[in-house]
């Protein structure tokens, strides 16, 4: 029977070719899905995120780990009927704010959040505030995340928040913000609950806020 450590290590090293057999082998041998998710897959992605954050791993390594995670979840998800809560820690709606076309940072956050078991609704780039509002109504997320690289487009974030408030949705979600020019001070200024200087930290912050 493949051990949880083997599964963990396969994800952490981005071994997407073997991960399917390892996960299937563990399931066939009676390992619980909850154990595989929490003690092998998610922990591996947390480790990858930490190493990326500290400069020990690079972006291709992270993408490879995410690919391995995806292969594993494709095997696990159909078996979760009625127990989806085991794999889905919450829902995140994310988009690059109006006027901004950059998406590398946003895509990294998606990779890490999905790796931690979040369902992520990606609204894309140059997202109008009304699109965020409509997505909140449709998907009922726990977290709404704004991404922006340009200093000029950060000025649009208060407008996005106001639209969410005007729609009466502010209390139902936690807000997150990230991007090269964003600081903790900026997040505090607009009452945004979640900030992280990098993508790996963002997924951790999502978990922290939901566990509060």
């Amino acid at each position, binding site marked *: 029977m493949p051990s949880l450590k083997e599964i963990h290590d396969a994800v952490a090293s981005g071994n997407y070719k073997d991960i399917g057999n390892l996960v299937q082998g563990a399931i066939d041998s009676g390992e619980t899905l909850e154990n595989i998710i929490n003690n092998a897959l998610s922990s591996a992605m947390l480790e990858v995120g930490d190493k990326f*954050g500290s400069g020990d791993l*690079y972006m*291709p390594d992270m993408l490879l780990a995410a690919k391995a995670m995806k292969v594993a979840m494709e095997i696990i998800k159909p078996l979760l009927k009625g127990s989806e809560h085991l794999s889905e820690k919450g829902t995140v709606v994310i988009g690059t704010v109006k006027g901004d076309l950059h998406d590398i940072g946003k895509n990294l956050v998606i990779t890490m959040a999905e790796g931690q078991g979040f369902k992520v609704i990606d609204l894309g780039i140059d997202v109008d505030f009304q699109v965020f509002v409509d997505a909140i109504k449709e998907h009922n997320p726990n977290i709404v995340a704004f991404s922006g690289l340009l*200093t000029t487009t950060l000025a649009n974030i208060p407008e996005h928040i106001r639209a969410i408030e005007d729609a009466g949705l502010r209390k139902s979600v936690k807000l997150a913000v990230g991007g090269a020019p964003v600081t903790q001070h900026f997040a505090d200024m607009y009452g945004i609950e979640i900030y992280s*200087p990098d993508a790996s930290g963002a997924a951790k912050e999502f978990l922290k806020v939901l566990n509060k």
Partner: protein
Amino acid sequence: MDSRQKFLSVMNFDENALIPKTEFAYWAGTIRKWFSQGLPKIKDVSEEILDPESIRGSKPLTLKYADEVDNNVAPFFKLDSYLEKFPIDYSSMMQSRVLEENNEYRIFVDKYGLTNKVLKQKSSIPMVIDYPIKNRKDFYEYVSLYDNSSGGIAKRLPADFNNLAAELKNRDFPIRLGGNPFGFSFLARHLMGEVTFMLSMYDDPEFIKEFNEYFLNFTIDYWSEILRKVEVDCVFILEDIAYRSGSFISKEMFDTFMRPYYLKLIDFLKQYSINNIFVDCDGLIGELIPLWIEAGVTGLFPFEAVNDIVAVRNEYPHLKMMGGFNKKVLFKDSTKQEIDGELGRVFTVLKSGGYIPHIDHAVSEDVTWENFRYYREKLNSFIDKI
């Protein structure tokens, strides 16, 4: 000394060099805002240029490009021309075609084969929704569209190339070859997207090597035709392979997928006595600098202020630099002391040569005219005293 002579003398670390007073670029929206904040208007910004698009701080290569360059800020401060880009075309030159169109948006394939979506309701820059190269098979099909013969290359040269080359012999401004989209990670990412590029480094490393080998040879064929007739002052290699916390790729990845092509390209450039070989890379680049230097790169641009320009100059005294002034200290709520502090950093580096100070990217709309004027006048005054 004209702008070109100043550029060359500074980049040569000449003792008596005059430092160019120059800016790389402004957003069109910045110039429009500054008109209402006090910048005297000499010429309106063309309505066809969107607010986030660039107005270059250089002289136009020909009148054809006159609308894309600054006609207002440079005369006010008596600025030198920045490096003007010699026009290049790295596309597959395929016919653009519209795939879908309605009242809301248009989806089209451009000459690179990128599928773009552009919204009609507002001024919007097209966003890429699909890439032409997803694997090695796509790559072979894609490059079959390129013709590297003299006849094929000739189609990529400006229509008036011979006359232009003759005119450029007597120019008073510096020019560069290269830049967007040319670079040994940037071009691949441009044509295949970030994820395919990065995963292919592991899944099919030979594919990435073949890609860069192909475009290295294409570049040598292409640029040979240009360099036979035009003496360029600088070469730009666009990478943008770092973010605010560091490099996207490791030393091993650089050594495997990029270094060999830098070495060959730079050998080729040396045949034309080109010594100003700059990498254009945003983000925190500290761990990449020694790799680039070792591969033959001699300069960096735009040297975003997330990097400590004083420390880099101390560590690499012969490394040339352009940019480095933190634009954020020119935003609305900044103080004069903050601007003076940032100026102090660039003054330190200026004294040691090989450096042209300017804002660390195109000047964005959140830079106020009042703060920009304060910064530029102080910087010009300091340059005059050196």
